[in-house]
């Protein structure tokens, strides 16, 4: 690891002012489970790290006023084992369980993962499907960014220079909503080659509402709008017939992990399975 200036921020305001002072070569450090591998491998050479890990007020999971509000510094392990999260939005519990290894989940944070914006990562996908809202601040004013608008490309977010993600607001699952999460990894703990997340409601065996998203098929999480439009009204056991709609909007790149054609095939299969799992749970069955 090569040298960098290190600043410990005790609050969001301190972090924001440090980032402003140090300029664009400064990076925020939270749990470090995405950033430090890149630094160790020489793929990132930040001039300065602003350690926000000890900042006050960002480590809570709260439920109130009809919203699940999660601090950006909540570690994956806390998210994974939180009864509040499991009750309010079990898709999130399932998704975070797929992040890295237990060791990574002990250190890594929700905000860190979202801001790293890896296009194969589970949490940005789950947040996109759950239509979460991100609270960000530059230390002075704050604003809200929709999850779907947060990742703008590979490892790139809609955050302006000096802006910091502080909280994520997740609408809790409405009664009767089911969830599905499927992913394919080469090895346990790897990033997904493709991951699929779904939430659905059903009535008398017919899909009533459907949201489905994919990770690993584009430069950011993708919602399957064609499938979401076609699924309502479909008998649950006929969902597989809509597999082509799952991949109607995707054209995944070929890279060292998988060919574009293989990713498309995975998206087709995992998308249908995640949707079917969501419907099964919505109808009170175990998928």
């Amino acid at each position, binding site marked *: 690891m090569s040298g960098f200036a290190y600043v410990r921020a005790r609050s969001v305001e301190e972090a924001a002012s440090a980032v402003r002072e140090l300029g664009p070569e400064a990076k925020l450090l939270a749990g470090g489970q995405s950033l430090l*591998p890149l630094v160790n491998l020489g793929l990132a050479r930040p001039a300065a790290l602003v350690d926000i890990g000890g900042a006050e007020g960002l480590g809570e999971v709260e439920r109130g006023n009809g919203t699940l509000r999660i601090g950006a510094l909540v570690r994956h392990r806390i998210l994974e084992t939180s009864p509040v999260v499991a009750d309010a939005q079990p898709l999130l519990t399932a998704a975070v369980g797929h992040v890295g290894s*237990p060791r990574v989940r002990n250190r890594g944070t929700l905000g860190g993962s979202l801001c790293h914006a890896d296009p194969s990562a589970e949490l940005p996908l789950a947040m996109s499907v759950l239509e979460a809202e991100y609270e960000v601040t530059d230390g002075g004013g704050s604003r809200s960014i929709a999850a779907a608008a947060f990742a703008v490309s590979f490892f790139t977010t809609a955050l302006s220079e000096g802006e910091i993600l502080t909280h994520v607001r997740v609408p809790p699952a409405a009664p009767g909503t089911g969830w599905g999460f499927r992913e394919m990894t080469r090895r346990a703990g790897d990033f997904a080659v493709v991951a699929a997340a779904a939430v659905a409601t059903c009535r008398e065996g017919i899909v009533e509402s459907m949201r489905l998203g994919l990770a690993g098929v584009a430069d950011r999480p993708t919602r399957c709008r064609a499938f979401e439009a076609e699924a309502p009204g479909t008998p649950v056991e006929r969902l597989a017939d809509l597999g082509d709609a799952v991949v109607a909007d995707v054209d995944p790149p070929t890279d060292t992990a998988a060919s574009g054609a293989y990713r498309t095939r995975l998206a087709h299969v995992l998308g249908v399975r995640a949707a079917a799992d969501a419907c099964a749970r919505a109808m009170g069955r175990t998928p």
Partner: protein
Amino acid sequence: MTAHASADVSVTLTVNGRDVTRTRPAHVSLLRWLREAGFVDARLGCGEGVCGACTVLVDGAAVGSCLVLAVQVDGSEVRTAVGLSEDDGSVGALQRAFLHHGAVQCGFCTSGMLMAATELVERGEPLDRERVTAALEGNLCRCTGYDGIVEAILAVSGSGAPPA
């Protein structure tokens, strides 16, 4: 706000029950910090958080010490595999189980395996093969085939087959 512009920083950790203070540059990883302080049972494998050879416990939680800066955990309690020994220097129960079940071959992964297992066993939850396997997901062994490791952990947690 405390700034360390590429400067040395003093970090104090309680390692295996002993307070250790060292002044090193801020970019020094916990792994390097520990090894330089003589705790060479934490090992550098991949350096990117995949192999688990550097696993230590920080305040009871298993972490990859190559993916943590020492300065990030200043003031914490750290345990490494050496700290699992009994007071008289003999190996502890988990280490004995590893030996008994053939869970060690070349030994490079062993200290990381032991620490991942220690976190799991100390949580005190009932264990089965599936839970042990999930807990070891981030620890690679290229020799043993894992069976002995899983058996050893189940035995120590009281969930394994009784010794023959």
